[in-house]
């Protein structure tokens, strides 16, 4: 097709790093300029630190098991009591990343600005993921130190230098990142905030209910393939024998995350915006 008009001189094609910076700053500016981001993180912080502190205080006042049962006591778990709820707040942050754009229609502005949809998904994952991982590790270590400070006053604390402890604290922070990524994937797939949050709730809490209600050993045999039970395994001081090892459990967690994001990537490129 001939085009008689003179077109405006086109700028030189920007380099790949420049284009990556474009879409990353795009998503970063969007993320930091809405209140829901700040609320999600604040709620995550209150849950993680506040609830862990309360759990630690309660722990100091309850009678300790004796004999054989004493060996399985995990004073570390007290530190993570609040993180189980903080994951939801961060998960919702991930969900909103895409679902709020679908809800408002802003998604069309986004895709008109950056037609390469996988780049948008990747940038959202990178930006939300960085925030979630940073928040996760900060909160995990903060709740650990706070809870252990309370416990150590009663000679119940556990030191960070004890084998297995640093890994468990790091893994606990990582779980917040995982939830943000699964949330992002679900928000992309389902496109409705409420639906995606409900799915996230189900994915996180149903395995726990299943684990409690199924008779052993079936609860462990099935549970070890779920996100939640694998999550408890990677932050445990004494890994459960009926489940996968912490390393394999971590692999299960990563597989869930990757699968959700992969499904999101497949759908986002095929569906009309």
């Amino acid at each position, binding site marked *: 097709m001939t085009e008689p*008009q003179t077109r405006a001189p086109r700028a030189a094609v*920007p380099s790949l790093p420049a284009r990556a910076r*474009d*879409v990353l700053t795009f998503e970063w*500016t969007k993320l930091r300029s809405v209140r829901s981001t700040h609320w999600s993180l604040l709620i995550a912080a209150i849950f993680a630190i506040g609830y862990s502190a309360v759990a630690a205080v309660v722990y100091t006042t309850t009678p300790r098991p004796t004999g054989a049962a004493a060996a399985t006591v995990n004073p570390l778990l007290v530190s993570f009591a609040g993180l189980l709820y903080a994951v939801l707040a961060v998960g919702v942050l991930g969900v909103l990343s895409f679902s709020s754009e679908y809800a408002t229609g802003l998604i*069309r502005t*986004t895709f008109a600005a950056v*037609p390469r949809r996988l780049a948008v998904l990747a940038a959202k994952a990178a930006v939300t993921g960085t925030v979630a991982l940073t928040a996760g590790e900060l909160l995990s270590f903060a709740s650990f130190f706070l809870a252990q400070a309370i416990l150590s006053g009663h000679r119940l604390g556990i030191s960070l230098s004890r084998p297995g402890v640093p890994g468990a604290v790091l893994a606990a922070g990582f779980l917040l990142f995982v939830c943000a990524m699964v949330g992002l994937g679900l928000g992309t797939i389902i496109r409705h905030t409420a639906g995606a949050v409900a799915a996230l709730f189900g994915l996180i809490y149903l395995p726990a209910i299943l684990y409690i209600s199924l008779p052993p050993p079936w609860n462990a045999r099935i549970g070890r393939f779920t996100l939640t039970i694998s999550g408890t395994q990677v932050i445990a001081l004494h890994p459960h024998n009926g489940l996968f090892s912490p390393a394999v459990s971590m692999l299960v967690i990563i597989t869930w995350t990757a699968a959700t994001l992969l499904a999101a990537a497949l759908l986002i490129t095929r569906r009309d915006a």
Partner: protein
Amino acid sequence: MIEVEQLSKRFGPVTAVDGLSFTVRSGHVTGFLGPNGAGKTTTMRVILGLDAPTSGTALVGGRRYQQIIRPLHEVGSLLDATALHGGRTAWFHLLSIAQSNGIGRRRVTQVLQLTGLDAVARRRIKGFSLGMKQRLGIAAALLGDPPVLMFDEPVNGLDAEGVQAIRQLFKSLAAEGRTVFVSSHLMSEMAQTADHLIVIGRGRLLADTPTGRFTESSARADVLLRSPRAGEFARLLAAHGAAVRAEGDGGLAVTGMDAPAIADLAARHGIAVHELVPRPASLEQAYLDLTGDSTDYRAGKPAREGTPGQ
């Protein structure tokens, strides 16, 4: 320049766009007209790469939209002015879009001033009126200073002053040599803004013509005739192939023959004519004629009245 070629888009059993072809040229405001549900928005979405066409192509500046890197420098668009995150300020909304295409902060300030939003830039969009949201959308479309601009129903819900301002803006953008493609379901709106019209109905092209010649495609243009020998002249006109319809007040509405031919015929037969008035159909009427028939869209013979001058 926007080139749409044999474009079709089906949503399940519904055909939204059906073999649509047209070209939108630079330096003009081109109106994209059609009743609600005619397929205007779908066509625009396909042009922007938001919806994938079932068949056919839509090119902007010779390329598919998805192939354009930093597309906001090539195409500025506003599909839905209310598609905004209410919790974000106007400044951050525009800044984020600017950053996505490597556009600097200075340009953000510029478009805010250009659309008169600089005073409210730091306010959350939630509190904006529809008119302010429209201006924000236009500001976003102008960010990349693009040669092609596309607006879907941009004056919907605007007050008279806002409509006037937007018309002026479109005309000045076209005068700068840009391609301005504006959809509407109201002819009255386009009549005053667009110098070229693309009319669709049920996803098919009905007309692609300069606005000034649009009424020619309508059968409604006629000639009003008054004569003391009306009855006799009517038979004579009919014998010469014209269609004559009596109007209530004794006048005759003649179609199929223009005023000079009628006057010549009257002179040849010595019939006095007291009034002879060519009555062009109004744009509005022509539009209604074209789109009003729900079963026959005359898709087989769209009124291609040539292309606008280069």
